[in-house]
């Protein structure tokens, strides 16, 4: 599999997608002479996606058949996977729109009954995909909400502060309580602070456990038990207690993030530092290596793959910790606070926007750890 093949796949899929959309748009316009334009566009999108996935599936089928029908070296796995993922994603989006109709239809019918008018199917679809407080907002509504609460909000604030000094305007825009970026930043900073501390302490404890039998015997069982109990339940109490002793804002959330990432790191690091086998340790003995030398030259490098595995778990746990922390001290803001706020007002769009941003944050965090892992492993020679 090389880049050109992947590129080819992307181009083919894109062309396919665009042509499907165009065909679908024509079909919809032709079928419904009049009606709301937004509905037509969306119906065309859905139809396009469905045509696209159908054609895609057909192409993949016939293509694999063609590949297998001749004696050829390995079928192209990566392109196949790529198309498969694309297919599943489009199906998920199609289902999402379908569920939006199902879940929001009652409210649309209610409005119609109260207003005393009949709903045609296309009007029903138009309504369910554009309600203010839908039970399930459509992806484009969520995207619109995210844009409204980030870009548009920033632009509005920028206009409102017209006349202030430049730097002050920037800081006002960044500090805008209505702006989702600020909330995401609050969550991210608590997550990172907690993650760094949790990981550092976790590694230290793991080193202690590996080198001290008494510590191994007494502490390790508790660390393992901590993996089976819902330590996240401690979050509200930690916030309240730290607030009572005068700590508020970032620190309590970071504390929760820290202890959530701490335990996976301890478990992973202990495993990693113990990963050298007895032959490798004997070898060190034959060279009369000191404990420190064994640690720096053998145990620590050998633990790197284990460390990264637990870092990925740890960073995801840290984010969850920060968000749950924000549920308890919502006045400070953060993505968790936005979710709670949306929950109070029944504003589903706010919840979904915060949720998607949180998911994106998690994806970015986990994949940056993954990237660091790949780079480090490559430089250390663990992988080609």
């Amino acid at each position, binding site marked *: 599999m090389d880049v050109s093949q992947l590129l080819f796949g992307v181009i083919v899929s894109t062309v396919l997608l665009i042509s499907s959309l165009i065909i679908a748009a024509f079909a919809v316009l032709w079928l419904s002479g009049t009606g709301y334009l937004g509905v037509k566009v969306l119906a065309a999108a859905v139809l396009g996606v469905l045509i696209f996935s159908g054609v895609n*599936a057909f192409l*993949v089928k016939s293509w694999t058949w063609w590949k297998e029908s001749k004696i050829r070296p390995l079928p192209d796995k990566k392109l*196949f*996977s790529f198309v*498969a*993922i*694309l*297919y*599943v*994603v489009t199906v998920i989006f199609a289902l999402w729109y379908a569920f939006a109709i199902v*879940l929001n239809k009652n409210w649309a019918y209610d409005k119609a009954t109260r207003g005393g008018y009949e709903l045609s199917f296309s009007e029903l679809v138009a309504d369910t995909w554009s309600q203010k407080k839908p*039970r399930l907002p459509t992806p484009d509504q969520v995207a619109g909400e995210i844009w409204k609460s980030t870009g548009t909000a920033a632009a509005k604030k920028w206009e409102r502060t017209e006349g202030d000094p430049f730097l002050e305007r920037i800081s006002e825009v960044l500090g805008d309580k209505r702006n989702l970026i600020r909330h995401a930043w609050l969550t991210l900073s608590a997550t990172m602070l907690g993650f760094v501390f949790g990981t550092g302490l976790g590694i230290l404890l793991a080193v202690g456990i590996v080198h001290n*039998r*008494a510590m*191994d*015997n*007494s*502490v*390790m*069982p*508790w660390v393992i*038990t901590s*993996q*089976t*109990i*819902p330590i*996240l*339940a*401690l979050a*509200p*109490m930690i*916030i*309240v*207690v730290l607030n*009572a*002793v005068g700590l508020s804002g970032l620190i309590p959330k970071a504390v929760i993030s820290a202890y959530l990432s701490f335990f996976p790191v301890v478990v992973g690091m202990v495993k990693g530092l113990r990963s050298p086998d007895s032959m490798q340790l004997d070898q060190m003995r034959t060279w009369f290596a000191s404990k420190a030398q064994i640690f720096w030259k053998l145990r620590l490098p050998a633990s790197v793959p284990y460390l990264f595995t637990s870092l*990925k778990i740890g960073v*995801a746990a840290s*984010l*969850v910790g920060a*968000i749950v922390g924000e*549920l*308890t001290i919502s006045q400070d803001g953060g*993505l*968790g606070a936005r*979710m*709670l706020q*949306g*929950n109070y007002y*029944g504003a*589903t769009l706010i*919840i*979904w926007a*915060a*949720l998607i941003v*949180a*998911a994106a944050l*998690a*994806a970015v965090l*986990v994949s940056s750890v993954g990237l660091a892992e790949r780079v480090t492993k490559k430089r250390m020679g663990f992988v080609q």
Partner: protein
Amino acid sequence: MTLILAALVVWAIGWGLNIWISHQKPGRWQSIVSAIIFGITLVIMWELIVRGSGISPVILPPPSMIINAFATSTDILAADFIQTFMKGVLTGYAMGCAAAFLTALAIDRSDFLKRGLLPIGNFVAALPIIGMAPILVMWFGFDWHSKAAVVVIMIFFPILINTVQGLDAADKMQKDLMRTYAASYWQSLFKLRLPAAAPFIFNGLKIASTLALIGAIVAEFFGSPIVGMGFRISTGAGRLELDLVWAEIVVAAVAGSAFYGIVALIERKATFWHPSQRK
């Protein structure tokens, strides 16, 4: 002051004891005894330091107060346990496991779907799915149904991924052997692939057992009837009834490890042949 000195003495004794134990011949009970001594030492120190240093028991209640709260509000704790664990967690766990397992069986037959779903499943497993809780509370109401729903979506993907991977775990030679017997899909599924997948499936079930309790408790932070472990923890913390909150956390901890322990025990019985279970 004397109490704090006493705490230090207790620490020294406990740690000394553990060092002495660590120098004994390694045995089966060594680690367990050591861990228990360590735990007891910490609890006694907690009690002594809180009493000795003038930390307000409202902020950090000493263990004796927690035990007291445990004894006086057993009925509340029991009601919370039934609401959250028996209704929310167990229902959600059963439904989530069944849904994920059946989905795994369904997509297992198509290489195309597996390739499409697995990366997405892996991606979703890393997301803060718990954030779906407020939405599900809106959809399914304040009672335990919404908690069960949160549990279902939290455990769905871990079990799905593990099951799909497990179904691929039987080695090629054994699959070829099944082919030479002209075994049908279902025969080879039940006789070879499901048993070979069992260690993976149980791994998913164990991960899910902890996620389930977390999901149900956190979902209650977003809204619940006036009963439930998450409700008690969040409102108790707000009202500074921390002794009750600690008692609830103890219940959650015990329930969590018992749940995990039971799943692990079943695993041990069912996959006794696997190298990780052999002694």
